[in-house]
């Protein structure tokens, strides 16, 4: 009984070499998530234009998430390890500090969006959709960052 799925294999599709296309698939998935997050926020801003319904300061989370996305993905994994030929303008330690700050901004924005959802919407007994929009924007940008950063392999860069 134990291990009865050990010899199970997914049906093989030989026509497309997925290992070569891994980076492209990861980029496309990350793009879908990132821009869907932004359009959810645009939708909330358009449907709830008054500041009482959605305070315009809540856009800050999404802006910092986006900034963090580009900071995190600006350094390649090779530069953080110190492997690449040219050291870039920051060197290895600078790249690590940059990545650290990027991840801090990303996690900070995610936590802030959760705080906004619960502090400004769920506990206030108002229409909760704008709070959900802020949260989903930042959550989707967070997952997009992870997929774009860790879903691609740098071996395909030759």
């Amino acid at each position: 009984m134990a291990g009865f799925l050990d010899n199970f294999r997914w049906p093989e599709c030989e026509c497309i070499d997925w290992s070569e296309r891994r980076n492209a698939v990861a980029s496309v998935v990350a793009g879908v998530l990132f821009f869907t997050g932004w359009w959810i926020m645009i939708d909330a801003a358009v449907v709830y234009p008054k500041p009482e319904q959605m305070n315009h300061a809540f856009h800050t989370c999404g802006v910092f998430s986006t900034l963090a996305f580009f900071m995190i993905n600006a350094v390649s994994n090779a530069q953080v390890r110190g492997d690449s030929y040219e050291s870039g303008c920051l060197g290895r330690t600078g790249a690590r500090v940059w990545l650290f700050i990027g991840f801090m901004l990303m996690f900070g924005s995610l936590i802030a969006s959760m705080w906004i959802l619960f502090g400004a919407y769920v506990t206030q007994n108002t229409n909760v959709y704008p709070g959900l929009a802020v949260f989903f924007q930042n959550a989707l940008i967070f997952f997009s960052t992870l997929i774009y950063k860790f879903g691609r392999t740098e071996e395909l860069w030759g």
Partner: protein
Amino acid sequence: MAAQCLAHALVALSFTGAIGLTFLMLGCALEGYGVYWPLFVLVFHMISPIPYFIAKRVTDDSDASSSACQELAYFFTTGIVVSAFGLPIILARVSVIKWGACGLVLAGNAVIFITIQGFFFVFGRGDDFSW
């Protein structure tokens, strides 16, 4: 023979392109709709190939199967495609256009983006036909 194949492909692609634009125009011009805001998605259609061409021009090394620039181009192209679908939905949510018009515009978007992808597939192949 290959040139004839390409000519047939060109005709087929222009047909699907016309169908897509027809859907878009129907979404604007039908009797019950009459608003022309959905035509703004044409801007997204026109700029969608641009990141790919920028990446192709900037990347000189053709040995590598991928590069950071090319992947960033895929990222932004996907974003432009998502935006072309998002805009009509938001216009319908605030009742600038009707949901029926939104549906027609989304169908037109899908057909036009398939046409654009078809252009890249057919004319970007090069001489080798291996995967």
